[in-house]
């Protein structure tokens, strides 16, 4: 059986999506595959590729306990949808009314998760402090971020491995 990392539902081996929450289980399987020891040297099979493929998941926890997982490796646009453009995080679908169309961007940079306000009307706050527009700010696991009237706690489990520092390599081995 497979266990859904998102909701804990048990699925048969070979399931591609969780039947309870829609989570793409195949991504998890592919990720595990990339880290599987190769029979030749005992190192992860895709160690060289891993820097690009290992993506730590970014999850937003809303005040009501709901969580939203950001897909892919970013950058992610936070905003309101328009006729032609769909943000990665649709604030309107989450009930926010005062988030700008292009409100803020979340992205991985130099091994850290950064947030940048894109000159929004009603501002972006991190742990209660308003950000200067267009100035990236590094986030830490568990930070509370507010985009106008949408608030969420940002959770990310592992440090990003785009340019791993020695300490991160130690953690991995």
């Amino acid at each position: 059986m497979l266990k859904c990392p998102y909701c804990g539902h048990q699925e048969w081996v070979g399931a591609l999506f969780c039947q309870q929450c829609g989570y793409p289980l195949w991504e998890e399987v592919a990720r595990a595959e990339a880290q599987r020891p190769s029979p030749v040297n005992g190192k992860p099979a895709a160690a060289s590729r891993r820097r690009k493929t290992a993506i730590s998941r970014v999850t937003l926890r809303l005040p009501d306990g709901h969580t939203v997982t950001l897909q892919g490796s970013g950058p992610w646009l936070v905003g309101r949808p328009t006729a032609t453009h769909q943000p990665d995080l649709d604030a309107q679908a989450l009930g926010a009314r005062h988030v700008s169309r292009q409100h803020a961007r979340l992205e991985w940079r130099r091994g850290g998760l950064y947030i940048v306000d894109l000159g929004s009307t009603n501002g972006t706050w991190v742990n209660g402090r308003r950000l200067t527009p267009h100035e990236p700010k590094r986030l830490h696991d568990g930070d509370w971020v507010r985009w106008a009237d949408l608030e969420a706690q940002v959770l990310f489990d592992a440090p990003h491995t785009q340019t791993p520092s020695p300490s991160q390599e130690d953690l991995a081995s």
Partner: protein
Amino acid sequence: MSAFDFSQQVNYYEVLGVSRNATPEEIRAAYREAVRRWHPDLNPAPEAHEYFLLVRQAYEVLSNPKKRQAYDRTLEQSSETSEMGGTAPVERVRAPQVRVRVSYSLIPPLEEPQLWYAFLIIRAPWAPPRQPRPLNLWLLIDRSSSMRNGGKLALVKEMVAEVVRLLRPTDRLGMIAFDDRPAVLLQPTPVHKRAIFLHALSQVRPQGGTEIARALSVVESVGGRSRGPHLVWIFTDGRTYGDEARALHLARQWARQGVICDAFGLGEDWNEAFLDRLTGLTGGSTHFISGLSMVKTLFPDLIRRYHHARVRQLNFTFDLSPGVKLRALYRMGPEVAHLGVEPPVALGVVGPQERWLALAEFELPPLYRLEDGARWTVLDGTLEFLPFRGRPYTEPLRLEVHVGQGPRSVPPKVVRHAVERLTWYRLQLASRAAWRDGRLHEAQQYLSHLAQSLNRRGLGRMARRVQQQALDLERFQRLEPEAEKDLEFGTRMLMLPADVYEARQRGQRGSATRSPSK
């Protein structure tokens, strides 16, 4: 599969629509007529260009006495080799392209069962639409008393008018009105006198309940070996009670005769699960009609496909290896349908330049006993293309996996895409089932997960609708029938190829403002 060879396919006399002993004048007149009809500047159909070239080619040969004589000789030769005894010429169905993509081609030998997916893509052989095929279409019109509400009968009349408008003079249309008892309004009649259909329909007065099986059994002169498709279209707003088994039995019989049944539901109270099974058994599909503009995008697609269908029906017979179960078979193009899983399965028809798409979900048994590297057959089957004349053409289809320990590949994108859509469809089914069981919180959870998944894929509009229904469920502790239909058909449409989905969306949106069901 061999390359396409024109000369094997088409008969120049048929292209121009003239007889073998036509005079040069007749040929010239027919050519002029064909040019007017098929010139790409005058005919926007995508196949017009290719057909136009064919028309010119035919004229070049038939207008030249020497070339014509030589061509006649080749026709005589080929008819000697291909005629199968009958007087009707055999229609050759060129080998179609069948492609299969699977979730995993290497399966680990586990002591537990596994899920496995296969996505089937069938491209019909390119078929020049010489003449549209004459359709034999029965309309079964629900006149139960509930049709009086919300202008539904008025919408049905508009739907019939649209059908009549789209049909050609050579098509035949019959109409049956049904409630508890069916009444034939009109025996199948050529459609050149359009007014009589609308007149017959004006006699319909809503009364009684909905009983489908009786109406189905009245449909006469169905099947047989006529030159065009046999279709039964059901327009209904209600639920049939107690006669489901009989109706399904009839549907199975029809499927064997190549009759295709489609259903069109109006309003919120009709039973889509039943109609889905009924139509699915015949290779047809079930549609939710939200308003007239929906009809105007859907009907032309359907009728065009049937007019130009290369085969009467595509059948799929197969054996499954011991322990294998075919859990579900969903057609995802050209129309979404929940097909049967008991062979023979009627797959429906596919129009020219369309792809037939379906997702099959299998349960595989524990495979730990097999040795590493073994090839193992999941399904061994045959696709049967039932032509309008001549013998069926068959194509073997075998689904195999390799069993062994090895790196798990990433499933192909088409498979991921299809399974994701099926998962969405099932999330809303699960939500509705949970709601019906009184598990309100669970029902809501399914919907918010669905909304999130839709959002992740950039389907914000649909996500917002689903999110709203989750909120309503919380607030009012119930799912309105309207919301259920929206969830069911909203997620179902997402299974269609992107371009078809876009076109249908526009049709739906257009009808939202003038929906009669209020």
